[in-house]
Each structure stands twice: as structure tokens, then as C-alpha cells.
């Protein structure tokens, strides 16, 4: 990059400029779109256009994990990385076809609201609130950590300072603007993050394959004129170093199947995604905005596996069997962050990067693949800075969406619906803002003092959503006779079995166990599929032995199946 911008202003200054500009935009939008009523605070007034909602949903959904980590994980897992690609997009088909239109017609503010009303029970509502809180807090801690990491790596401030800056920004527009502020900042954040992801990908695709479209480039031939396909070359490099062929992967088929399904169903059951569909005007807008959201997500998700292939090939070629003394500057820079570690086990001064852990001398963190990719490919400084702004947009937009779910669960579902139904509109709005403040502080605390189990619990969040909300909502819409006894029992059994399996195999509780002990060879990440099936079975069996739901509830179900007359969301 030195050759490209000899007298440039440097990565650091570029980062300050780009992050400064984007943050100013977010704050400007927040001031312009303050929420004046609970309806504006919870569902942005219910009049968001399908395009704006699609963009907001895409930004809401694509977190620090999608932006920073996913391409890296894929580049180390090869074919197996498809579980995230299919799992985190296929869920939108379920959302559009099975959930979003009906939940919009139902016309409430939150997911526990639907559970509580459809199952005519505050116990069901409480179970819903607890699930929503666990899922959302788990997620948001990871986002704040992501904000801190980006600040510390690109701007060389302390991670904790980074987390606090992130907290202040989110606090500002989530508390002030509620869903209305969040929606329009997310629209801006989508634009920032997709631009930041695509620019380096396109540059590198041209460099390596001569094709400006990364999705085609990674299936094309190398630009060196050798006529070799890039993927064939990477398969060769991988097997030479003792890894599985890149395009084959190493997980068992049943586990790939289970993880993919758990992630799809979990996606469709995540409250912060579902609630976005409450913000549009009509049922048909809910369907359409699910399509737009997925289209916008897929632009990034189909590019990520291309980035993974480019980055892995580049990395192996740059470092494998090279003398440590000659490594490029980025290698040293990321070594100081601890994300790359090299130990010269055989003392030959060369970097041995191989599958055999006894001989392997190089450990590379997943996140490097996106964060350092522009440096590895020697792109200009402003592109490197752009990645920082994009990663922040991804982390902040998801954090804000989750915080809103948390504050709505407390102020609307707990306070308004269960503790003090007589609370005034103004009082509820104050409660909503206060709970958002508390939620930001708790999230910030976890961002500064991350519990060791964050990585494990993100998978848990999907498993929990799959095991609890998804069956309860699906049965609530498609099975008129489903009653509260069945739904509550199903949710409780679903969550408990998921928690049991996760803690057993992730934390070693209940006697622990290793991969050999997995039931049916299914990993904890894939167990959400089994827990979801358990939920369905338990719900239906219990329902058969308990009274039918009241007639008026059955009429509500008939009513939500008809799209016309979707009134405005009500209390």
C-alpha cells in the first residue's frame, strides 16, 4: 500500500474521518426521528415502507459476526461453512411464508405479546419474555464486544473506551428515537456496511481472477493465465498441508443437516428480526419487505464465501513455508494483537502451517480474514478504514435492534401487560426509555467484562429461539386447536432440553461428554433441531389431553389468516 499512496494521510486518519462521518449521520438521523408515542417507540408508528424496512431488517440481522467473523470461519471450514450461509438465509423463507404476514395481521408490539394473547395466558407471556431477554442479552453482549474490538484495532484506543463510545452512540439513538430512530439509522447503516464489505471483495476478485464479480470470480480461473481454477488450486493447497479438501469439508452429514436447520429455524424465531415486520403498514408489505431484506442480505452472504476463498489462498501463499524474518508488515501488526501467533517449534525459521497440530506453528484467528484482508491484498488505506466503519455499522445496528426488544419486553410485556396495566401512555414511554438505558448499561458491562461463555451462548441463542418461539408461533397460526397447556409445556421442555444439552457438552455439567457421546452425532449447535422437534411433539401430545382453546381465540386465529383489514398495531 506504500507504493499506492506514498504521501497519503494514513490508515489511522482515514479511519477517524470515515467513522466520524458515519457517526455524525447516525446521530443526525436520531435527532430528526425522535419518538413521541409508544407506538413510534415500539414499531416506528407502523408506517415504514417495505424498502426501508427491508434495508433496516438486513442491517438489524447482519451483526458483527456476519460482517467480521463469517467469511473467516468459512475460510477455515471450507464446505462446512455452508451451514451459516444456508442457515442464516433460509430462515427468511420461513419468515416470509410462515410467520411475518400473520404476525403483522395480529398487530401487536412484541413477540411475547403474540404468545400471551394467542395462548390467553400470562404464564405463556412470561415464558416468552424470559426467552426474549435471554436470547437478546446473549447477542447484544457480543455486539458491544465487537464495537470495542474494532475501535481498539483500528484506532488504537483501549477496548473498554471503545465499548463506552459505542454505548453512548447506541444510547443516543435507541433511547431518543426508539424503533423509529433505529429504523432510519439502520437504513443508513446498511448502506455503509454493504459498501464496506463489497469494495475490498471486488478489488481482490479483480486481482486474483480478473473478474469484478466476486460471486463468479471464485469459481473462475486464476488471473495469472495458468488456466487453473481458483477452487482447484485451493483444494490442492489444502490437501498438500494435510487439511481436508476445501470444497469437501469434514463434518458429518447429519450434523451439517441439523446445524443448518437449527440456524434457519432459530433465525425465524429471533424476536429482534420478527418485530421488524410489525413496523410496516399492510400484510402484503410484510411479505415484500421479507423478500427485500433477504435480497440485501444475500448480496453480502454470497460474497462472503468468495472472500473466504480469496483470503485463504492469499494467506497460505503469503506465509506457508516462508522465512519468519521476511513476513509482511501486516503479519507483525496483527501479531501484536494476539490474533496471529507463531511459534517456531522445529527452530528452522520457516512458518509451517499444517493440519497436524503437533507440527503446526501458526494460529490465525477467524476475524483476521475480513479485518486484515485489505492489508494482505495491499489495497489502499481508505479501503482498510472503510472496513472499520462497516464493522461498526454492523455491530451498532444489531445492538440497537436487540436493545429495543429488551426494553419493549420490560416496559410493554412486563410492566404494561402484567404488573401495572393502568400505566399511562406517557408513563409507559418513560419506562421504555429507562429500560433501554438500563439495557445499554448491562450490555456495556458484558462488553467490558465478557463472560467466557459468549461464543458458546451465541449458538445457544439460536437453539433457544428454535426450541421455544418457532414452534409456539407456527402452531399458534397453523393449528387452531393448539391450546395454552400444549404451548407452554412445549416451550418449557424445548428450552430445558436445549439448555441441558448445551451445558452438558459445552460446560461439562451433568457429567459432561465429548464428541463421541453426542446423541445421533449431533453437535450442541445442531441440537436446536432436536429441541424444536421435542417442542412440537410435547405441544401436540399435551393438547390432545387438555381442553380446546376458547372460541374467541379460535376466531382470532381464523382472522389472522386473512390479510385484509390489518389495522394499526394496538395495545
Amino acid at each position: 500500500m506504500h507504493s499506492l499512496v506514498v504521501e497519503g494521510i494514513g490508515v489511522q486518519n482515514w479511519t477517524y474521518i470515515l467513522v466520524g462521518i458515519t457517526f455524525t449521520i447516525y446521530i443526525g438521523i436520531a435527532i430528526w426521528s425522535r419518538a413521541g408515542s409508544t407506538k413510534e417507540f415500539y414499531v416506528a408508528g407502523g408506517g415504514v415502507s417495505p424498502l426501508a424496512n427491508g434495508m433496516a431488517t438486513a442491517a438489524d440481522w447482519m451483526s458483527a459476526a456476519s460482517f467480521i467473523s463469517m467469511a473467516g470461519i468459512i475460510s477455515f471450514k471450507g464446505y462446512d461453512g455452508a451451514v451459516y450461509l444456508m442457515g442464516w438465509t433460509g430462515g427468511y423463507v420461513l419468515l416470509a411464508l410462515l410467520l411475518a404476514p400473520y404476525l403483522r395481521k395480529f398487530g401487536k408490539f412484541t413477540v411475547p405479546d403474540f404468545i400471551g394473547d394467542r395462548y390467553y395466558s400470562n404464564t405463556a407471556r412470561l415464558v416468552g419474555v424470559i426467552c426474549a431477554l435471554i436470547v437478546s442479552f446473549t447477542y447484544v453482549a457480543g455486539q458491544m464486544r465487537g464495537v470495542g474490538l474494532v475501535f481498539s484495532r483500528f484506532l488504537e484506543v483501549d477496548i473498554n473506551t471503545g465499548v463506552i463510545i459505542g454505548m453512548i452512540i447506541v444510547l443516543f439513538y435507541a433511547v431518543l428515537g426508539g424503533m423509529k430512530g433505529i429504523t432510519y439509522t439502520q437504513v443508513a447503516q446498511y448502506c455503509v456496511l454493504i459498501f464496506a464489505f463489497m469494495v475490498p471483495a471486488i478489488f481482490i476478485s479483480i486481482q486474483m481472477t480478473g473478474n469484478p464479480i466476486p460471486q463468479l470470480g471464485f469459481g473462475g480461473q486464476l488471473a495469472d493465465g495458468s488456466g487453473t481454477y481458483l477452487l482447484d488450486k485451493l483444494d490442492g493447497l489444502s490437501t498438500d498441508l494435510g487439511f481436508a479438501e476445501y470444497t469437501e469439508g469434514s463434518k458429518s452429514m447429519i450434523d451439517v443437516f441439523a446445524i443448518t436447520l437449527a440456524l434457519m429455524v432459530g433465525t425465524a424465531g429471533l424476536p429482534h428480526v420478527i418485530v421488524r415486520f410489525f413496523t410496516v403498514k399492510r400484510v402484503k408489505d410484510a411479505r415484500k419487505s421479507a423478500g427485500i431484506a433477504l435480497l440485501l442480505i444475500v448480496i453480502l452472504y454470497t460474497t462472503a464465501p468468495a472472500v473466504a476463498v480469496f483470503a485463504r489462498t492469499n494467506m497460505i501463499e503469503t506465509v506457508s513455508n516462508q522465512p519468519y524474518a521476511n513476513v509482511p508488515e501486516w503479519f507483525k501488526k496483527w501479531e501484536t494483537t494476539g490474533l496471529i501467533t507463531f511459534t517456531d517449534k522445529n527452530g528452522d525459521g520457516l512458518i509451517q502451517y499444517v493440519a497436524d497440530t503437533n507440527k503446526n506453528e501458526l494460529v490465525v484467528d477467524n476475524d483476521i480474514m475480513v479485518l486484515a484482508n485489505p492489508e494482505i491484498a495491499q489495497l489502499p488505506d481508505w479501503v482498510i478504514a472503510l472496513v472499520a466503519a462497516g464493522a461498526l455499522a454492523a455491530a451498532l445496528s444489531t445492538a440497537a435492534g436487540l436493545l429495543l426488544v429488551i426494553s419493549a419486553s420490560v416496559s410493554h410485556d412486563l410492566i404494561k401487560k402484567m404488573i401495572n396495566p393502568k400505566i399511562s401512555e406517557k408513563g409507559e414511554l418513560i419506562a421504555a426509555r429507562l429500560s433501554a438505558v438500563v439495557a445499554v448499561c448491562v450490555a456495556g458491562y458484558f462488553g467490558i467484562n465478557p463472560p467466557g461463555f459468549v461464543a458458546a451462548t451465541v449458538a445457544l441463542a439460536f437453539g433457544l429461539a428454535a426450541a421455544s418461539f418457532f414452534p409456539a408461533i407456527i402452531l399458534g397460526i397453523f393449528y387452531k386447536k393448539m391450546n395454552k397447556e400444549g404451548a407452554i409445556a412445549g416451550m418449557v421442555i424445548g428450552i430445558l432440553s436445549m439448555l441441558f444439552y448445551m451445558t452438558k457438552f459445552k460446560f461439562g455439567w451433568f457429567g459432561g461428554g465429548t464428541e463421541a457421546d453426542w446423541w445421533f452425532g449431533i453437535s450442541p449447535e445442531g441440537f436446536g433441531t432436536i429441541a424444536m422437534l421435542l417442542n412440537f411433539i410435547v405441544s401436540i401430545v399435551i393438547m390432545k389431553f387438555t381442553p380446546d382453546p376458547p372460541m374467541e381465540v379460535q376466531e382470532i386465529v381464523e382472522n389472522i389468516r386473512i390479510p385484509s383489514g390489518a389495522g394499526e398495531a394496538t395495545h
Partner: protein
Amino acid sequence: MANKEKAKAYWKENIRYVLILMFIWFIVSFGAGILFKDALNAFKMGGFKVGFWFAQQGSMYVFVILIFVYVRLMNKLDKKYGYDA
């Protein structure tokens, strides 16, 4: 009563669309991308093995198309039954 019959007929057509589209959803992802991946990998499209391509690219394109097809079908269906108000 007529209203109830109409709602029932609408719901039946909707379910039929959903089942057909969900079948395609399953075939491209769990079918082509996972269960039949090895068989499809015997074929190549450019540099892509076909099973690998479905798992990391093709299934996602089909997902997008499925939703927009559903949007179109349902907009028509809503009109046919007069539920588009």
C-alpha cells in the same frame, strides 16, 4: 357463512402455495447442498463443483426467488378473494 367458506378456500390455496415453495426450499438447500452434495460434486460448472455451489451460492439465490414468487402469488390471490383492501 359465505364469508367463512371464502376464507377457507383462500386458506387452502395459500397452504398449497406454501407447501410447493417449501418443497423447493428443502430440495435446493438440504437436498442439493447437503444430502446429494457428493453425487452432484461429480459435475462441475466452471470451477465450481455443483454440490458445493448449491451449498454456498445457489441455494441462497433460490431462497430470494422463492420469496418474491410467493409475494406475487399472494398478491394475486388476495385480489381474487377481495382481501387486498
